[in-house]
């Protein structure tokens, strides 16, 4: 091997190690590391600007957009309001169409089910279409341990897998990498079926061409294909997949065995519900009127058909969704159609990027989903990465009130009454109260009190004004550290607004205080 190749491979290995080290860090450390990485910030800034502009260009008429969003919301809410019935109808119609349906309560059960189907069919090589649920249940890892090779075939996912990383965006998985990084990665690690490497190139068409050649070989020979599902139509027993590349069609068409995996919330009642959700999805995600392919699967190959999979399975995954469904405020989480618009519009996501969140789903929807699936103790920290500016809620095509849900989760995280993960009360988030600290709650109690009693408030603001020198000194620094570690310290004014107004001779209005004293 040429010396330069050995060097390149060493570098790629080191980068992969850096990545997994970074993943072990605390959320705040990861966020800081991301903020200090200029290349990464450029990638995310560029991608967010690009995707926001694309979306805006296909929604020229705001009135029509708002009306369409309302319909999207209504369709998703209707589906959720009838969720258990629709799932049963779906199962009945899929079964009648020859698609076998399986139910999994947990991630592990889903992985085991999928492995069981593969094992029954002696499938050793698997190609995968894009599926966030399979990332959520960590299917690749599970199958790898069982000796089954699971190759990602979406271009972005393929590159991310080649690098030994995880997706940083739900629609554009390799958004964090630039052309040069991908060129090095392909040259250093990609291999054709006969063990040949690919030449170094930064030309995007050539890079895609090289990956295409490698992956087509894999599609042709794979024993099984695993895909996600964008919508499942109950009345017709149809699985719908949205994609541009054709890898989803390859995965669901060429191998003898197709296993689709999806969350239980993805069902809609009728074909009539599909067009508007589809248009909302593609326009919000990538600014396309429609994706290149919309693939509707209603059964395996029939006897008189000449191609297509002989078996189709659907694995319905709960993994915490039925708990979300029971929460009185957080249920709309399940309206999500996974378009990614909330992350594209999030000023925090644009700066820290997808990996800082350390979860399968990053950005606003990730902040809402992840703590609910994994519990607030393990995943509650990311809730602080939100300024409640509201951009995500305005972009969401199905009107999920994301900022309100993030606030609700913050309340749950700080709830005085802790519950553990196994708590049988489904109307509460797992590990509620896990982020509550005594110090913080005392401070907030005092803060609330001061705002209720004007004399107390004035005393507080005066003492802050007097002690402001102290606050910016080293003692103050230490005292305020939990706040100022990742924020600029607030500067107290020498005089409060009250004092200044009084000095100017503006008298307080009669009765003003009374009102507050109750």
């Amino acid at each position: 091997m040429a010396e330069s190749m050995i060097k390149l491979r060493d570098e790629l290995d080191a980068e992969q190690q850096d990545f997994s080290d970074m993943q072990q860090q605390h959320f705040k450390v990861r966020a800081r590391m991301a903020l200090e990485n200029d290349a990464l910030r450029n990638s995310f800034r560029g991608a967010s600007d690009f995707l926001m502009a694309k979306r805006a260009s296909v929604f020229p008429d705001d009135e029509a957009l708002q009306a369409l969003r309302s319909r999207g919301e209504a369709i998703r809410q209707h589906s959720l309001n009838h969720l258990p019935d629709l799932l049963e109808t779906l199962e009945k119609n899929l079964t009648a169409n020859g698609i076998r349906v399986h139910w999994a309560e947990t991630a592990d059960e889903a992985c085991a089910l999928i492995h069981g189907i593969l094992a029954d069919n002696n499938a050793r090589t698997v190609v995968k279409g894009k599926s966030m649920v399979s990332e959520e249940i960590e299917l690749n890892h599970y199958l790898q341990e069982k000796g089954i090779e699971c190759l990602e075939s979406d271009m972005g996912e393929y590159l991310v897998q080649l690098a030994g990383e995880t997706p940083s965006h739900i629609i554009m998985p390799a958004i964090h990498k630039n052309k040069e990084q991908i060129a090095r990665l392909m040259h250093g690690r990609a291999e054709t079926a006969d063990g040949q490497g690919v030449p170094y190139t930064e030309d995007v068409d050539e890079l895609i061409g090289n990956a295409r050649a490698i992956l087509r070989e894999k599609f042709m020979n794979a024993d099984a294909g695993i895909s996600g599902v964008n919508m499942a139509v109950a009345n017709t027993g149809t699985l719908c997949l949205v994609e541009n590349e054709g890898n989803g069609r390859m995965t669901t068409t060429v191998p003898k065995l197709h296993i689709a995996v999806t969350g239980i919330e993805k069902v809609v009642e009728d074909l009539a519900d599909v067009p508007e959700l589809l248009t909302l999805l593609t326009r919000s995600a990538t600014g396309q009127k429609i994706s290149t392919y919309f693939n509707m699967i209603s059964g395996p190959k029939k006897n008189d058909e000449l191609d297509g999979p002989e078996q189709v399975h659907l694995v319905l995954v709960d993994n915490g969704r039925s708990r979300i469904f029971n929460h009185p405020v957080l249920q709309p989480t399940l309206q999500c159609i996974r378009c990614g618009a909330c992350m594209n519009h999030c000023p925090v996501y644009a700066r820290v990027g997808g990996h800082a969140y350390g979860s399968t789903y990053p950005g606003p929807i990730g902040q809402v989903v992840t703590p609910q699936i994994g519990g607030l103790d393990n995943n509650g920290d990311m809730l602080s990465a939100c300024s409640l500016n509201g951009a995500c809620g305005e972009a969401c095509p199905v009107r999920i009130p994301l900022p309100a849900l993030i606030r609700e989760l913050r309340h749950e995280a700080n709830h005085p009454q802790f519950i553990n993960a196994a708590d049988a009360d489904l109307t509460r988030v797992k590990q509620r109260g896990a982020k509550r600290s005594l110090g913080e709650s005392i401070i907030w109690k005092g803060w609330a009190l001061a705002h209720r009693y004007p004399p107390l408030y004035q005393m507080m603001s005066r003492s802050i004004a007097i002690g402001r020198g102290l606050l910016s000194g080293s003692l103050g620094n230490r005292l305020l550290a939990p706040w100022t570690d990742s924020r600029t310290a607030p500067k107290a004014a020498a005089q409060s607004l009250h004092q200044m107004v009084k000095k100017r001779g503006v008298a307080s209005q009669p009765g003003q205080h009374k009102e507050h004293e109750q």
Partner: protein
Amino acid sequence: MSSRERILARLRQAAVGDSPRVPQAVSSDRVWPAPDKADWLDALCQNLRDNHAEVLLTDQQTWMADLLARLQKYNVSRLLCGNHDTAARLQQYIQSQSDDIDTQRVTTDIEKEVIFQQVDAGFSVASAALAETGSLVIETGPQEPRTVSLVPPLNIILVRQSQLQADFSAWAASTSVPDPMPTNLLLISGPSKTADIQQTLAYGAHGPKSLIVVMLTDA
């Protein structure tokens, strides 16, 4: 209790709202503007071209000659067709006009090596087209195998102007929807593509690099 029963029981335990079915969005009460009937053809062609497809505006009399010229320009030497009458006529025509193009209709199970490695182009027939998005509706089945419009580098789809509809909603509400659904129903709106490397668009990600739409106009 099985996982299925436990999941369903938990879902049934939840308080849900009671919303009526969302009425289907049909022509008059649509909130999303669809093109006027007079503009359907133009809209379809424009959208397809925007998505990097080539549109061959032709008619019942000359389409086979027009298509043959395109095939020669693309240097196609092996063309794979579905198993319908249109394909049979195309095959006959090409055989009578050219020795360079081997046209095959698939009548037995498709061999993967052949379609992946030897075929240059696949010919499919659409059952409808959607103006608003520039989409072709393909109903796969014994006549129309799934891989013909997927694996070969050049994808050719024939459609008639009379099959045009305003958009997907209109199609879904029309009698064109097959019942029962075919095992695989597709909307195709361009050649396969990706923007996964630094948002740079590249065609021919996994499937066809090019799409030619043969549009038989009414005139």
